Each structure stands twice: as C-alpha cells, then as structure tokens.
C-alpha cells in the first residue's frame, strides 16, 4: 500500500437541516484502489459520492480529491477541472435520451474539446475514432447510431461506461450501476467497469454481495451516516453484511419522516 493518496476526508460532517447525512472522522483512499460502499438506503453512500464529485460541499471538514480541496465551494473553472478527472456512472437515467449512443459517448470528450465544435456537436475526427473504439470496447459499436432511449437498460449502462472510457478519469464513481439490470447483464457491466478502471480509482455503491469481489478489493460499510466497517474484501462475510443491513432498533431510518424528530435522534444515539 505505497500508492499515493487519491482521496482524503477529515472530520467531515454533512447535514441537511437538523439531520446529519454523513459523519466521517477520517477516510483515505489511495490511487488505483477499488472500493465498494455498502449500506442500506439513506446510510450516506450517495452523499459521499456527491461530495467527491463536487455536487455537494461538506457542512464541516476537509475533503481532498487529487489536488482539489473540496472543503469550500469551488470556483466554477476548478469544479469543471475536478469533474474532468472524476467519471460517474449512475443508475438509470443519465444518458441524453435523444442523442445516439455515439453522441452520448462523445460527451465524455467535452473536457478536451471546446468552443464551437462542442456546441454544434461537430467533434474532431480523432475524438470520433476514440468514441467508436470505446463503444467497441464495451461491445456496442454495432448500436452506435441508435438513440439512447431505444437502448435496453444494460446497453445504456455499457454506453455510460464507454463515455467513461472516453473521458479517461482518474477516479470513477459508480452509484448502483447494476440496479436496473438482470443478473447476467450486471456481471457483464461489472466486468466492463473493472476494465475501465484498470488504471483509475474505482468507488462503487453496490447492494448485491455476489458482485463485491468483482468490483472491490476493499469494502466500506456505512450505517446512518457513519463508517461501520472498513475491511479488505477477504474479511467481509455474510454476517457482517447482515448486521449492516439489519434495521437499527425501531428501524428509525425507514420510518424516519413519520417518527417525531426527538424520538428518532434518541434512537440513533442508542443504537449506533
């Protein structure tokens, strides 16, 4: 583990109103690491990803991604510079529906291509070649001209990964990339994601234990906005996962809105 540090969080707290979404004392992820985030809905996984992609700033604390300090809101140009280095795969709707698969892949080059070419979508020939190569890599070259909204869920996810290859980011954030897929497509997509992340850091949110070994060498379990465990994949077993997913006490998380606020807070204090 002598790779340079890619991501460092220190004394981070994110809250929305009176509710703490995420509290992390310290978290370091080295460059090239493959990390899976697990935990039930509302545990703070997506909050963590949004934090790392600059879609959210922490209420308190330091977040460092590569050379960018995300503790305060970034100026627009630095935010764009960060996002060029951070590739995202989200579940479901994240392609531009009316554009073809190839056009969607070419969006990945917007960080490099500027000016009128990027406004009229007249991308330079070498970028188009690269886009076709990326589609070929995910086995979607034959579907290059098909509009994104006519593709199946698995095909869309593959196009999203081709866009990722096009972007060539140093950090890949994948939020439940297999949520809408059947099991064989999920394995397919995970394999492609892993190839796309050959030289990059990969952080994936997954719910399917079977996919963990494909995607991660390290697993971080989140529970109610806190790190419950942070272990190498070999040390993660069914019991640990079952503990993590077991509802806390009165399942405060699931029934959050209907339970009076002060009750919910005591519940958290008691059970976490």
């Amino acid at each position, binding site marked *: 583990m002598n790779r340079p540090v890619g991501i460092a969080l220190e004394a981070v707290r994110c809250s929305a109103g009176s509710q703490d979404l995420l509290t992390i004392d310290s978290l370091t992820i080295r460059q090239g690491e493959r990390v899976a985030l697990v935990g039930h809905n509302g545990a703070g996984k997506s909050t963590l990803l949004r934090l790392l*992609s600059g*879609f959210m700033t922490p209420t308190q604390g330091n977040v460092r991604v590569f050379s960018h300090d995300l503790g305060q809101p970034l100026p627009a140009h630095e935010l*764009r*510079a*960060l*996002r*060029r*280095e*951070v*590739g*995202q795969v*989200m579940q*479901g*709707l*994240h*392609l*531009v*529906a*009316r*554009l073809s698969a190839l056009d969607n892949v070419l*969006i*990945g080059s*917007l*960080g490099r291509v*500027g000016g009128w070419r*990027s*406004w*009229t*979508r007249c991308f330079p020939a070498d970028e188009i070649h690269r886009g076709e190569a990326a589609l070929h890599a995910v086995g979607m070259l034959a579907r290059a001209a098909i509009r994104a909204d006519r593709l199946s869920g698995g095909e869309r996810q593959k196009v*999203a990964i081709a*866009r990722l290859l096009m*972007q060539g980011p140093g950090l890949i954030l994948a939020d439940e990339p297999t949520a809408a897929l059947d099991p064989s497509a999920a394995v397919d997509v995970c394999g492609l994601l892993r190839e796309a992340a050959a030289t990059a850091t990969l952080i994936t949110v997954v719910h399917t234990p079977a996919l963990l070994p494909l995607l991660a060498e390290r697993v971080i379990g989140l529970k109610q906005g806190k790190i419950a465990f942070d272990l190498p994949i070999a040390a993660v077993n069914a019991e640990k996962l079952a503990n993590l997913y077991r509802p806390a006490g009165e399942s405060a998380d699931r029934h959050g809105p209907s339970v009076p606020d002060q009750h919910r807070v005591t519940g958290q204090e008691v059970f976490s």
Partner: protein
Amino acid sequence: MLVPALSSRALDRFGGRLGFLGLTLLYLLLIAACLGSLAREGELSFGRNPVANLLKTAGEFARPSFLDAWFGNPHLEYRSDDGTVLRTENRQTVERDYLAGLGRATWTTIRIATLGSLLGALLGLPLAVLTARNLAAPRPLAWLAKGVLDVARSIHTLVFGLVLVGIVGLGPTAGILAIGLHSMGSYGKLFAEAIESLDMAAIDAVRGVGAGPAQVFFNAVWPTVLPQFVSSHLYIWEFNIRDSTILGLIGAGGLGLLITEATALFQWGRLSTVLLVVVALVVSFDALSRRIRAALA
C-alpha cells in the same frame, strides 16, 4: 352519541358516491334551467319551415360553385320580366375569376397563420423560460409571465382581431397580430412543459464530465428540447390555419372574407367551394405536420 359516529362512518364509505350523485343532480338541474327558460322565452323555435329550408340549402351546397368554371352556362341570359335580355354572362369566366380570387385569399390565410404562429412562438418562448418551474426564475417575474400567458390564452383570436383592426386598420397585419397574441399563450404553456420535462439526471451527467454551461446547453438541453419545440410549433401552426380562416369575418382578409360574402348573399354554392378549400387546407397541413411530428418523436 351513536348517530353522529354512524353517519360519519357512512360518509366515509359513501361520501364520494353521494358527492358524485349531488353533482349529477346539479348538472341535470342546470340543463333543465337552460332548456326551460329558453322555451318560456320562445327562443327554442326552428323557424317557419325548417325542412324546406334545409333541403334547399343542402341542395345548393351539393352543387359547389367551382363546377361552373368548367360546366357553367357560357351564355347565361339575364332577362327582365317582359322578356328582354338585360345582359349575358359567361358563367365559366365569372367562376374562374372567383377561383383565382379564392387562391389569393387562401394564400393570405396561409400567410396570416404562418407569420402569426411565428410571432406567437417568439413571444411565448421568453415567457415560457420565466414560467418553467425547474428554471426557478424570480417569483414575481414568473407570476407576471404566467399572468400574461393566461390572459393571452383566455382571450379569443377574434376578440384580439376586433380590437387590433381598430388600432392597425383592416388587413392581414391585424390578423397576424391577433393570431400571434392569442397563440403566445398556448406556446408559452407548451414550451414551459417541454422545459419542465427535461431530464435533470442527464443534464447532471453531462455537467459531471466537466462540461461548461454552454456545452451543457448544446449537448443536453438543446437536443432534448428542440424537437418538442418544433412539434408544438407545428401543432399550434396547424391550429392557427383553422383559426385564420375565420379572421376574414372581422376584416383581416383571406378566406374568412369570402365566407362572409357568400353567407351575406346566401350563395351556398360558393360557400361550399370555400369550405372545401378550408377542409383541404386543414387536412393536408394536419397530415404534413403529423408526419413531421411523428418523425421527431
């Protein structure tokens, strides 16, 4: 103590049905009031001999005047009561001239509808941007824009036309402005809906690769919204072709003028010719626009 509890439970179970029954009764009452009062005022008459009138009108309708351009009497003689020939008329040339005028009137109607629709779209777009909820324009501006759109939509084209004829005078300009002002309301509403249905996740994804605002606009917003804009434009344009045929009634020119003439002179044959043109125009534009809209979907 028991009765209110029972009745409230009964209300829970049958409240919806009772409400519907009440509304139905109110509706029937309204219809009875309308019919009854009209009958008492003696306004429900069909005239003195409706059947004969209907047959006569239908007969003349069934022989549209344009047929005379080919089959008309070339030497129609107008005679006075004592049998002297006052003048002779070539029905064929008269009707051919009328057809030429009809063609010009059709072109005027198309011009009014086309330019009016474009004006409405241009006026409606900025107001739509202000009213679209996901763009979060300043509240007072959004309300103002929504108010303008609602007023424009609720005032009929004909009313706009009547007012505008008084301002800019008779002619197509009044028609264009009337169409533009009324359809501005519809455009604003449809455009705002198109903007509101934008897929924000896709936009975030494009923003997520580090694209600047202009790149996000041209790569995610524009390709999504443009086809919907074009589709609504065609839809309202088609609507306005229909609307502008009636604008001649108030002096904006075009087919409506010929309709007024024909009805004022009881020339049902000519009215039938004009209406055939209106139907052909609307149906062909409808087919064309539907095909384009299907291709854009």
